[in-house]
């Protein structure tokens, strides 16, 4: 039976591909189609069908390699996983219908056929979804690393003065990094004043405020001063509404003012040079 299916698939490959593309266009997720041009869709589709067919002829290892290559590609293209599982199901259906029409299977050999096609399809489902999710996981972990790299840098701007610009959402993990980098940086750069810039933090809720207060307190304990700069008017109002007490932390509206204060605190100022 396996041989029969193989022969059918090989000799009707063009037909199967055409039918598959047509059916998938109808069933596929809008996202998948919008994400790519028609030409790309046909190209990727034929690659997918070829991959499925190669499962007959190639060795297991070679098939796995191809599946991984293909998966990486479609993850980049933004094809959803459902497109793949749906694609395999449609492929099976096309082969079944085609073989019924040509009379290759009848009602007696039908059970035989389904067993065989399932034996063939299920490991393939497994391999392809596994390769797909692995590619996804890899992408996500890479992004996570990239995100971590820019999460909380401490920049020495003047002697004794360092700046930590924060951009984006602060979650527990990031709050931990802020604290770590802050304390480590204060000691390494011998900073006396640290300016934490929150211009780029979209929402300051009680948790974020709590972390900032804790960070400021910790900085004070290692002998430096901490100023929060870049408090936007709407953030100031929500902080007041929330009833958060920031009295123990110095704050300014802009980085410029913060730097001026920091220089004053370390007994320095910026003067214009007389010609």
């Amino acid at each position: 039976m396996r041989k029969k299916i193989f022969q059918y698939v090989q000799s009707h490959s063009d037909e199967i591909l055409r039918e598959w593309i047509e059916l998938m266009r109808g069933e596929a997720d809008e996202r998948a189609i919008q994400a790519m041009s028609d030409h790309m869709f046909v190209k990727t589709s034929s690659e997918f069908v070829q991959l499925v067919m190669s499962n007959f002829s190639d060795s297991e290892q070679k098939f796995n390699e191809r599946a991984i290559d293909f998966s990486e590609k479609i993850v980049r293209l933004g094809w959803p996983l459902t497109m793949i599982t749906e694609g395999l199901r449609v492929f099976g259906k096309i082969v079944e219908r085609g073989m019924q029409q040509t009379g290759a299977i009848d009602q007696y050999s039908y059970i035989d056929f389904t067993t065989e096609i399932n034996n063939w399809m299920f490991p393939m489902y497994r391999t392809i979804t596994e390769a797909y999710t692995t590619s996804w996981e890899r992408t996500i972990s890479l992004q996570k690393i990239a995100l971590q790299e820019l999460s909380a840098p401490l920049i020495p701007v003047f002697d004794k003065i360092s700046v930590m610009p924060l951009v984006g959402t602060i979650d527990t993990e990031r709050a931990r990094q802020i604290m770590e980098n802050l304390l480590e940086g204060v000691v390494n750069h011998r900073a006396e004043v640290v300016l934490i810039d929150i211009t780029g933090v979209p929402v300051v809720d009680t948790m974020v405020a709590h972390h900032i207060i804790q960070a400021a307190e910790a900085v004070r304990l290692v002998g430096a001063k901490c100023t929060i700069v870049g408090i936007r008017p709407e953030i100031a109002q929500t902080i007041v509404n929330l009833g958060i007490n920031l009295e123990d932390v110095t704050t300014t509206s802009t980085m410029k003012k913060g730097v001026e204060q920091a220089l004053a605190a370390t007994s320095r100022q910026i003067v214009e040079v007389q010609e």
Partner: protein
Amino acid sequence: MDSSVKIINEWDIVAARQLGRNVAKELGFGTVDQARITTAISELARNIYLYAGQGEITIEKVENGAKKGMTIISRDQGPGIPDLRKVMEDGFSTSGGLGAGLPGVKRLMDEFSIESEPGKGTLIQSVKWLR
């Protein structure tokens, strides 16, 4: 029209906030009110994440005669709150936080109601009207 976000992990808080901000923008809220609304959502979603484990934030547009606004509904099947009066006090916290969350949300929004039953869960509804 209403839409909701399931809160299961910390990143869902960001998703709920984003949804709220978009609706607030659409309704024509100013930047200060947008900040108030997103902060309120952030508090409520974080409470779900911290205390109930999982739940749901639903955003609804509301209309009352000529008035327009939006409701934030926070629903969970968590442990519930044994003493409602206490959690509405400033500075009360069981998790070592600032204890400004719920009373803060009440001040950020125009209307606020809370129902909770120990062992069953908590339902919080709060409305912000467009001025």
